[in-house]
C-alpha cells in the first residue's frame, strides 16, 4: 500500500512538472519521471503474488511474479525512450533560435 502510494506520487510529480516547469528540457525530464512512475507501477502489480522468477524447476510451489506485465512494460520502456530521443532532437533544433528554451517564448514565436 505504501509502495503504491509512492508510485502514484511519482507519477503526479512528473505530471505537475510537465505543467509547471517553464523550460522545455525540464518538461521532457518531468515526462520521463512520470513514465518511470508508470513503469514502477507495472513492476509493483506484477509482484503482487510473489517475487520469484517464473522458471520451471524442481522447487516447490512458491510465489511467482507475473511475467505478463513485465513483458509488456519492456515494450513501453523502449517506445518511451525512443520518443524521448526524438523529442530531444527536436529541442536541439529549436535551441538554435531559442537558446533559453522557455516554452512560452517558443510558443509565442511559432503560433500564428
Amino acid at each position, binding site marked *: 500500500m505504501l509502495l503504491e502510494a509512492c508510485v502514484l506520487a511519482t507519477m503526479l510529480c512528473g505530471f505537475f512538472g510537465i*505543467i509547471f516547469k517553464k523550460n522545455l528540457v525540464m518538461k521532457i525530464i518531468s515526462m520521463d519521471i512520470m513514465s518511470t512512475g508508470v513503469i514502477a507501477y507495472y513492476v509493483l502489480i506484477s509482484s503482487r503474488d510473489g517475487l520469484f522468477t517464473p522458471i520451471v524447476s524442481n522447487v516447490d510451489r512458491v510465489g511467482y511474479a507475473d511475467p*505478463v506485465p513485465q513483458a509488456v512494460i519492456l*515494450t513501453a520502456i523502449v517506445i*518511451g525512450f525512443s*520518443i524521448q530521443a526524438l523529442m530531444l532532437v*527536436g*529541442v536541439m*533544433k529549436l535551441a538554435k533560435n531559442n537558446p533559453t528554451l522557455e516554452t512560452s517564448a517558443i510558443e509565442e514565436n*511559432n503560433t500564428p
Partner: protein
Amino acid sequence: MTEITIAWIALPFFIGFVIYLLPKLDRWLALAIATVSAVYAVLIFLEPFPLEIQLLDSFGVSLIIDQLSSFFIFTNALVTAAVVIYCWQTGKTAFFYMQAIILHGSVNATFVCADFISLYVALEVISIAAFLLIAYPRTDRSIWVGLRYLFVSNTAMLFYLVGALLVYKANNSFHYQGLSGSPPEAVALIFLGLLAKGGIFVSGLWLPLTHSESESPVSAMLSGVVVKAGVFPMVRCALLLEEIDPVVRFFGVSTALLGVGYAVFEKDTKRMLAFHTISQLGFVLAAPVVAGFYALTHGLVKSALFLIAGILPSRNFKQLQHQPIDRQIWIALVIASFSISGFPLLSGFGAKVLTSENLLPWQVVGMNIAALGTAISFAKFIFLPHQTSPPVPLLIGEGSITRRGEHHEERGASPEEGSNVDKKKIQSGFWWAMVILLGGLIGANVFYYEAYTLKNIVKPLITIVIGWLAYLFIFKKLTIKLPRAIEKFDHLIGVMSLMLFLLFWTIWERSGGLI
C-alpha cells in the same frame, strides 16, 4: 484469412523501410501499399462473419476484423493513395513516403487489434510517424507544432498505460472485453488517452493548430485518418460493452457541439476545417453502430477539403471573398462542401441519415444543431466568388498573397506557393487525387441507397437552407474572434486532469446506477 491478415499488417512496415533503400521506387511502392489495403478492405467487407484471431496463446495479441474495420481500412487506403498522388510531382524525398506508409500501416493496425497493449504500440508508432511528417519541412514552427503534438499524445498515453494495467489487474487479460469487469478508474484512464489521441471534446484542442499548420497533404492524412485511430477503439468498446455505449455517445454529442461552435466563428480556412474535424468525430461517436460509414465519408471529404484549401490563393476567408478563385477548383470545393453538409446525391447525405436513424432520443437536438452549424460553416466555402478565366487573375492573386503570406512561406511548407511552372504540374496530381476522393464520395452511395426517401431528402435540404440564410444574414457580418488561450501548451496538459475527473465521475455515476 489469418495468414493474409498477418502479412497485410506487416507489409507496410517492411515496405516502408524498403522505400528508404530503393528511393527510385518510393511513390510506386507507396501507391501499391494503399492498393493492397483497399483490396484487403474489400475482402473483409465480403466476409460473412467477423474474423477473430488470437495469436501466440492466451496472453498474446488478439485481433477482431469485421465490416466496421473494413470501412476504416478502406478510408485509410483511399486517403493514402490520394495523398501519394497529390505529392507525385512535388519532389518529396523518399523519407516522406516512408513515413507516410509507416503511418498508414500503424493506423491500419489500430483498426484490427482488440487488446489494449497492441493498441498502445500502434498508437505510439502513429505519434512518431505523424511527428516526423509534421516536422518534414524542418522549420522552427513545424518542429514546435510536431513537438507539441508528440508531448500531448505521449502524456495521454502514459495515463492510458496505467488504465491498461488496472484492466489487467482485474481480469488477467488485456482484451477489450475486460473493460466491463474493471474499476471505473481504469475505464476513465483509458478513455482519457483515447480522447486526447482522437481529438475529442476539450482534450482535442491540440488538433486545430497541428492540423492547420502542417503541409496540406499531411493535414489531409492527419484529419482524414489518423484521428480515427483514437476514435475507432472507443467505437469498438462501445459495441462490445453495453455500459460503455452511453459514455461514448455523450462525448460524441458534446464534441460535435464544441467543434462546430468554434468552426462557425473561424476566419481561417484550414483552422475552420480542423475545428470541423473535431465536430465530425462527434458524429462518428454519436452512433457507434454505423460509425464506419460516417468515418468513410468524413475521411474522404475532409482530406479533399484540406488538399483544396492548400491550393487556394489565401487562407483568410475575408481575402478570398475579394479574390475570385478558379471555377474548376470551386466546383471541387462545392462538391465536397455539399457532401459534408449532407446534400442528397453525395454519400455525406446517406451517412447523415444513417447516423440520425441510430441516435437515441436525447441526442437528437444536439446533433441537429451540430448539423446546422456544419451547413453554416461550409456556406463560407460555397459562397466564395469564382470565375472561369484562370491564368491572368490567378497570377495576380498569387503575387499579392506571397507578401501577406510571408510568415506562411517561412514554414517552407506549401509547395503550392512555389513558382507557376510547379503550379501546372501540381494541378494534374491534384486533379487525380480529387478524382479518387470525390469519386469515392459519390460511389459510396451504394452502401446505403435506402436513404433516398422523400422525408429523408427534405430534412437535410431544410437544414442547409436555414444554415445558408443564417450565414448570409448573421455570420458573414460577425467578427467575433474566439480567444486561443486554451490552445496553449500548458493548458492542453492541464485540461487532461480536468477531463480525468469528468470521465471518472461520469463512469462512476453510471456504474453506481447499474449496481
